[in-house]
């Protein structure tokens, strides 16, 4: 939005210890950024432009478009008005120059990896990550001659040792999924700068409300916008945010590969973003309260949540995050996989489903949902015990969620 007031960052809402500041007017940006104040037909909200192609007044207009490279619709695969609005809004929320949206989170990371890596190049990953990201690198990028090194999450020395002359990209999530380890973004971005290698943080679990990777010098932020950004469990989308210069070739390749999103989805994403700040406040509050409840429950062996003082990354998380999100991983005490599944099955509010970040709470057992056919030794290596439950707190009433878990654990 051209007339957005006080666009600049302010630290009025930040925790004080954070090295980067969070915009005090995130909600104003969430409602207005990226949209023209005066829209076609003067409608208050953006129209859904679902055209697959865009017409030109005459031949001269086509020639002008090719020469001047002005932003306008040409063919749907190259971009559309709903996409531009969402991209500008996401860039504003993340404090980045430019955003590119994709059909899904996976389409986004694949789009970036395909654009940035060529045969012979190497990429280094922290190993705690979404299993499909790992699968794409090890099974598919390898087919194009790209070498993937996985090192233990948060082992910065191991990551540095893995960096070679052909390394082009360092990748991590923060917090990681499902272990919720917190990556020190200053060290991570520092490694990239020291060795002249680009860095990518998948901040899906944190969102720009809680973490601002670009402020630490990270080059690319990745989001599965299906999660907190869309927020209503009713659309798939992905996004990459970074500098215009670094994203230019990424956008071009997307136009070729075609992993774009539809106008209908993008409208729902834009609509979801309008309540982004409110929802995140509530996710954070529910996450913290439920994690504390679980940590004190006799049937719970261990809780992984960065907001708990017992979490190994707690001090770091407090320093670099504003809040800790709605995702909690915990282990049921003395439970085998079946007894753990019973807890999941007894939940009445949280529903059994993959995904996270929507208004509805979701619950799942990673062993069953994501690693059911993975050999036991591999599950051990990835840190997926049988008694692990992943709970994505929605924005329901806090006490209702706690009461529901209490009865589910009691059974």
């Amino acid at each position, binding site marked *: 939005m051209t007339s957005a007031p006080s666009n600049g960052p302010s630290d009025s809402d930040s925790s004080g210890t954070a090295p980067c500041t969070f915009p005090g007017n995130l909600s104003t940006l969430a409602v207005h950024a990226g949209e023209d104040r005066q829209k076609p037909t003067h409608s*208050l909200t953006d129209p859904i432009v679902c055209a697959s192609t865009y017409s030109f007044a005459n031949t001269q207009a086509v020639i002008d478009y090719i020469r001047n490279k002005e932003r306008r619709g040409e063919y749907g695969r190259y971009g559309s008005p709903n996409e531009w609005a969402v991209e500008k809004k996401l860039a504003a929320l993340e404090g980045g120059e430019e955003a590119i949206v994709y059909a899904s989170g996976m389409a986004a990371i694949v789009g970036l990896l395909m654009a940035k890596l060529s045969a012979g190049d190497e990429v280094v990953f922290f190993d705690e990550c979404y299993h499909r990201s790992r699968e794409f690198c090890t099974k598919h990028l390898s087919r194009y001659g790209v070498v993937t090194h996985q090192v233990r999450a948060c082992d910065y020395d191991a990551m540095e040792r893995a960096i070679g002359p052909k390394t082009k990209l360092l990748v991590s999530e923060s917090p990681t999924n499902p272990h919720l380890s917190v990556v020190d973004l200053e060290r991570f971005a520092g490694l990239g700068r020291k060795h002249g290698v680009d860095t990518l943080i998948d901040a899906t679990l944190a969102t720009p409300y809680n973490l601002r990777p670009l402020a630490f010098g990270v080059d690319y932020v990745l989001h599965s916008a299906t999660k907190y950004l869309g927020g209503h469990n009713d659309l798939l989308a992905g996004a990459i945010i970074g500098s215009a210069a670094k994203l230019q070739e990424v956008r071009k390749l997307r136009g070729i590969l075609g992993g774009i999103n539809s106008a209908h989805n993008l409208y729902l994403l834009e*609509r979801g973003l309008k*309540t982004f700040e409110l*929802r995140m406040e509530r996710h954070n509050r529910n996450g913290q309260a439920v994690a504390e409840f679980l940590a004190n429950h006799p049937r719970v062996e261990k809780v992984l949540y960065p907001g708990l003082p017992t979490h190994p990354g707690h001090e770091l998380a407090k320093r670099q995050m504003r809040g800790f999100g709605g995702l909690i991983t915990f282990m049921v005490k003395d439970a085998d996989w079946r007894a753990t599944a019973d807890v999941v099955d007894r939940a009445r509010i949280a529903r059994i489903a993959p995904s996270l970040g929507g*208004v509805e709470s979701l619950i799942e057992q990673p062993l069953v949902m994501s690693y059911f056919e993975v050999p036991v030794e591999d599950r051990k290596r990835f840190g997926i015990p049988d008694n692990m439950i992943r709970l994505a707190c929605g*924005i329901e009433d806090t006490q209702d969620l706690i009461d529901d878990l209490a009865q589910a654990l009691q059974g």
Partner: protein
Amino acid sequence: MSGERHAFRTRAIHVGNERDPATGAIVPPIHVASTFVLPGAGEPSEFDYSRTGTPTRQRLETTVASLEGGCGALAYASGMAATHGAMLLLKHGDHVIAGTDIYGGTYRLLHKVLVSSGISVTLADTRSPEALEAARRPETKLLWLESPGNPLLSITDLAPCVAWAHQHGMLVGVDNTFASPVLTRPLELGADIVMHSATKYLGGHSDALGGILVVRDPELHRRLHYLQNAVGNVLGPWDSYLIQRGIKTLELRVREQCRTAQRLAEFLASHPRIERTLYPGLPQHPGHDIATRQMDGGYGAMISFEVAGDFAAAKRVVEGTELFQLAVSLGAVESLIEQPASMSHASYDRADRLKHGIRDSLVRLSVGLEAFEDLRDDLDQALRKI
């Protein structure tokens, strides 16, 4: 999920949004079918023709009924269609009492449309028992209330009005659009019908039109449903879906909007270019004590004020904001500003407008979700243009 034992916010997300049994989808599908295949000729089915009902509309109705504490709800194509849906209960010769501080569209429906069906109306200050009693006739069948009122934010004490009306055999309808069920639930205060322009807080994103009636009595529900099906002013599936999606953040939005509105009202009340600020959350507001009792933890997000000046001065203010957008409607994430005399209440006759206290210098705000500081600064710069 059985639901009723859960908190408002939890019900807003889950009641009416049960897991789809056919696909397991966490968000129920949008059923766009205009008609439904029947099990056999003349055999009853839950859904037959979409004017009568659709799964998507029914889910929205279930959610809103739970939030308002009703036995059932009916969704209409717009708030006015819902109001009309309730007025269809009336017949030739009946009389209606409505408040003086009501939506201009309701005023128009009563005075310029229903009047031709032989239904008469008297507007009364619903804050005054004497005024109500003076308006009552033997043939008065319906009392129509709005609290807070539009655009003067007058507060009507609903429970005693309802008791008085029931004593005289009237039905009571309450337009609860401004308060939303987050703050006020009129059925709990005895009202028979609650009406919402779901376009406003329920939908909340300025992108769907809709109206809702909620009732306590299954027989009244059946009668209204019969009339709705006969007249056909129903809500379509796409808008039903968008409104239901909006309701999932209803409580978060309304509470945040109330907090911002309270701070803005306090700022405006001490502003030198403003003569009078009307907001129930201000202690000097005549309805403040009733609002504190009747509204649950907030005073709404609508503020009206009279600028120190005339029609032109108010026009300059509403045209001078950058963040507040000049548009009718309210209740959404975007803040809006308008001049009732030229916009939302232009359907009143001017003399009637003035009689009911709607001056040319009146400005009405709908406070959205933007940051308080941004909204305050925007109003301040616009007021300096007077």
